[in-house]
Structures are given as structure tokens and as C-alpha cells.
């Protein structure tokens, strides 16, 4: 469930940027960016066995990697070339994908059926940044 939070204003890659035209603003809204996705263990009704956390901000990548790619989209060199080729041959070469470029781990503390407590680290669970690749 995406949840509106105070800190979510600085989440998207498109924030804190001076837009000169309405067109540029709307284009940025569609461009590749990180959006908030909150996975709530409480909403799943798992609070009886997951001790902590209550949930976590997983985030997801959303948007289009369309010409022109620029610094805000954290694009790889190959993605820039692929965008240009896509412009020339849209039917045969797809646009680059908007994907996670940096991931981090979460740690979950939970009971097993014997009431033993387990602290487990899950790598690559939180999207820290998105980009065109």
C-alpha cells in the first residue's frame, strides 16, 4: 500500500527540481522515478509472529525511459544509446527499462513455531534508487 508520508516528498527522483515549463513538469512526472511502496506486516495480520519491524518501505521503480534521458534518470551510457536507437527503430528496439539501480537489506525479527526467535537479514529488499538501464 503506497502511503502518503511527510518524508515521501523527498522520495521521488523528480522532486526538488525547478521546472521551467508545464510540459517539462508533466514529462518528469512520467519519467523513471522511485515511488513508495509500504509493505505492512500488520496489515497482513502477521504481528503475532513478526516481532519487528511493523512493515518496511520497499519502494518501486515507475516511469518511462524516453528521449531525452538526462541526469535525473540516472541512466547508463548504454541506456542513452538504446534510447536513440529506439527513436530511429521503435518497432525493433525497445526503450531502456526503469529498474532499481541500488538495493539495500532489511532485517526481520520473528518467532518460529518453537518460539525460538530469529533475526534474519534479507539482502536486496529495499529499492534505494531507480534508473534507466
Amino acid at each position: 500500500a503506497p502511503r502518503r508520508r511527510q518524508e515521501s516528498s523527498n522520495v521521488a527522483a523528480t522532486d526538488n527540481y525547478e521546472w521551467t515549463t508545464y510540459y517539462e513538469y508533466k514529462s518528469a512526472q512520467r519519467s523513471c522515478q522511485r515511488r513508495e511502496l509500504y509493505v505492512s506486516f500488520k496489515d497482513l495480520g502477521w504481528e503475532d509472529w513478526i516481532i519487528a519491524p511493523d512493515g518496511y518501505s520497499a519502494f518501486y521503480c515507475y516511469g518511462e525511459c524516453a528521449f531525452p534521458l538526462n541526469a535525473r534518470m540516472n541512466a547508463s551510457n548504454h541506456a542513452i544509446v538504446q534510447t536513440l536507437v529506439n527513436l530511429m527503430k521503435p518497432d525493433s528496439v525497445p526503450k531502456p527499462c526503469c529498474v532499481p539501480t541500488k538495493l539495500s537489506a532489511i532485517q526481520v525479527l520473528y518467532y518460529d513455531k518453537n518460539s525460538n526467535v530469529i533475526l534474519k537479514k534479507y539482502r536486496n529488499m529495499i529499492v534505494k534508487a531507480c534508473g534507466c538501464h
Partner: protein
Amino acid sequence: GFYSDNGVDQTIMYRSMPKQERNEMQQEILSLLGLHHRPNPASHAANLTSYSAPRYMIDLYETLTGDEEDVNLETVKRRYLPQPRERGELAQDYTFLTSSYFVQDADMIMSFVNQVKHEYPLRHDRDRIFRFDMSEVPLGETVLGAELRIYKNSSLDGHIENNITVNVYQLVPGIDPEDRQLVLADSYTVSHDHAGWLTFNVTQATQDWTSDAFANYGFYIQAICGHKSLEMHEASLVTRYGPEGKLPFMVAFFAAAAQSQSHVRRKR
């Protein structure tokens, strides 16, 4: 359900998932967590947080996640790794716990509570034998380290004025199927008036038992003062009965095998 922002600072649900889809989704997330089914802990599990093992784990979790970007390793080591034993207190020179960074390296840290209840007819044995069920440890996990923690109160027995040596033995099968042999796992000598957690290195036993659960016969604890063997209560060791926050427990640190992620994915 699925939610979206309605544009006026509210999040509204726009689709509720049917029960079957919800179950499938939960199964997917459980699978991602490396679990084949939802654990069903004892109904009183939520009230267990005052017990020593859950308390230790919650404390450890809070320390490790206090500042996720930059965990202060020195703080973790100071709080959770046994401090170097003073010269003369060592019966065996185990140094691995104090020098390792396995708290940071571990993908999974698991606590175990003592399962010995009525399987030994003599109370004498029930107090001296500790057994920890490791059957839930996923296959492919590598044991980085393991420790047995036993709380010792300050001795009030006027007859005991010397140091007390606590030996922890791993019980292994003997020649006869009914026999058990004792293999010394770790040993610790403390002053009779010492109060606090005694931490024993039981890594080898944990490695043996995670690879072969049927070989798990538990630990045998022996307390000696001079040449005299002491009962657990005489040595002021908290065993099966005692304050919730001082009950013995085991902690093991595991690393996921390099090739097989931290869990086995179910086939869909």
C-alpha cells in the same frame, strides 16, 4: 488491498483482493522470506518478550537497525560479544568470539530455548542437561559461531568461597546405542560471588547438530569447586527454573551459502 492516492492527501483502497488471490500473495511473500508456511508460534509468544532469549534478540535487532546506514560495529561488539576473559580465568584459550565480526557477517541469527522438560526422569539430570532444537535451521546455512549463555547469580552459600569452574560438554553417542560420551565444548572459571551471564563457545556442537539433527543429545553442564562437584543451584547457576530474564539460551550466527541465496524458492 490495492491503494492509491486520491489527490487530496488521502490514500483510498480501489480494489480488495479476493481470498484466494490474497492467500497466493501471502504465500509469495512467505516464500520470499524463505518460509514454506506461516509460522504458528505458541499463542503466548507475544508475552515472551520478557524472557531472556527474545529480550536478547530484540536488543540485538535494535542495535543493528538503530542506524541502518552505519551500524557502529564497536558498540555491537562491546554489547554482544563476550569480553576477553582475564588471565587465570581461562580454562581453555578460545579467542574466536572476541575477534570475529560475525554479528555483521551473519545473514541469520537464531536463538534457541532449552527444550529439556520431562525426557530425563531424574531431576538431577534435567537440571544438568540442556537441549536445543535445531531442526528448524534451513539447509545450506553455514555456522559462523554459536554461544550458550547461562546466568550465574552471586553465590550466597557460605560453604563455597573458592572459584567455580563450569564445564559444558557436548553429549555424543557412545559405542552402545544407550551410551553417551562427554566431549568438552568449553569451560569457564569464575569467582563464587560473580554475577552475570557466562558465555560458552559451542560452535562445534552447533555445526554437528545442524548437519545431523539426530546426533543432537544436548549439553551436559558440570560445576566444580575444588574437587567437589556442585549441584546447579549450589553453583548459583540458573537452569530450567528461574527468573524469566535469566533463563539459559543459545544463540547461533549463520551465513547463507553463497550460491543458494538465503532461502530455497518454492517451485511455482
